[in-house]
């Protein structure tokens, strides 16, 4: 099996005049939990639809398991378990009918896993999908996505609109999936604390472009937050080289720097300030600084 499960190069997508994705390149290695982060409408769902073969690459290429998902739906989709934001499960089916129906498509379906997950999620097999609550519907979808032991789990905003209990279930399953050898997870979310817990690599999508794409460790270690105390009160945000964002007022200001903290230290000294505190910023702060 190759080392790169998803290989996207130079992907551009236009919807009419609007560019939903612009020159996006992304590689998801095997065994990785890849988090796609961005605000609503940034292009995460569009990207995921390309991975599932629901959208064709207008410019650039998309390869999943080294195949084009739009050309070879059987080869690609049979190894993917997906949970979409719309929860497109048929309302009229019962849960046990749904499981039997999905089972027919995947030779690698494992009944024991399905049973165990249903038991753990407390799903009533006799109930119609249409009468399930939102959280239960998400859980049912998760069972159908996981029971065939997919090599790639694709989740589009899995936690949207769900209570913390269901969210924990979903995250737990993500962790369990990747703990198995060779299985990969791609999920998009705008809940950054979830992403911080489980992701190995993170990419920030903003207005159709990838702004940051790196391992989570690298992102967190290369960004530092400095609190600077100036001799004179500053009435407008001081422009310091190497700083991505700054907040504060009067004499104390906080800056977020990426990588070149040496440059920042020198510039701070030039402006007549002293660094009084240095800490690691949260993922949320890092991303907000890149976006604004």
């Amino acid at each position: 099996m190759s080392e790169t499960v998803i290989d996207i190069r130079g992907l551009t997508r236009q919807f009419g005049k609007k560019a939903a994705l612009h020159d996006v390149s992304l590689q998801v290695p095997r065994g990785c939990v890849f988090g796609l982060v961005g605000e609503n409408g940034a292009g995460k769902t569009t990207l995921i639809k390309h991975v599932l073969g629901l959208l064709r690459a207008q410019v650039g290429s998309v390869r999943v398991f080294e195949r084009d998902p739009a050309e070879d739906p059987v080869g690609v989709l049979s190894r993917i378990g997906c949970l979409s934001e719309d929860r497109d499960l048929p309302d009229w089916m019962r849960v046990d009918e749904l499981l039997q129906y999905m089972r027919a498509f995947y030779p690698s379906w494992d009944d024991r896993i399905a049973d165990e997950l249903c038991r753990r999620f407390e799903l009533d097999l006799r109930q119609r999908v249409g009468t399930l609550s939102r959280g239960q519907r998400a859980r049912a979808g998760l069972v159908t996505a996981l029971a065939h032991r997919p090599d790639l789990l694709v989740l589009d905003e899995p936690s949207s609109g769900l209570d913390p209990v269901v969210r924990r279930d979903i995250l737990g399953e993500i962790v369990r999936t990747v703990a198995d050898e060779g299985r990969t997870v791609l999920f998009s979310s705008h809940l950054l604390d979830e992403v911080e817990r489980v992701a190995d690599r993170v990419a920030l999508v903003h207005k159709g472009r990838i702004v940051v794409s790196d391992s989570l460790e690298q992102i967190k270690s290369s960004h530092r937050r400095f609190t600077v105390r100036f001799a004179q009160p500053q009435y407008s945000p001081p422009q310091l080289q190497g700083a991505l964002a700054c907040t504060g007022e009067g004499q104390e200001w906080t800056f977020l720097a990426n990588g070149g903290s040496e440059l920042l230290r020198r510039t701070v000294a030039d402006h007549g300030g002293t660094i009084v505190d240095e800490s690691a910023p949260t993922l949320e702060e890092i991303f907000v600084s890149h976006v604004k």
Partner: protein
Amino acid sequence: MQLRISVNDGVPIYQQIVNQVKYLVAAQRLEPGEALPSVRKLAEQLVVNPNTIARAYRELETAGVIVTRRGAGVYVSEGGSPLARGEQTRILNERIDVLLAEARQMNVDLDTLIELIHKRSRRLPATSSTGESS
């Protein structure tokens, strides 16, 4: 083994695990030779990426706090490692610093403070001394 992970701490998750395990060992809540949950189990329990757990375990092993037995799992290393004792001293020092700062604020001098400590120590029921003498 009860661990608490906070994402917004500013401290990386693996570091939090390392610190907490060291604390638990030092506080005798993890006995030498006791088994720790596997990487997979702990990842599921804390809902954290298994790689993060693996990294934490690697660091703990390098520090000598835990030891991996091939095929058998992860265990707390035997016989009070010097670092476990070092951890104990570190914790106590933290407490002492706080106490000293408070005493200074209240304008209580060092001798009075030591006297108070003796008094409170006599009130404690006689227990076997915890941990080896250092």
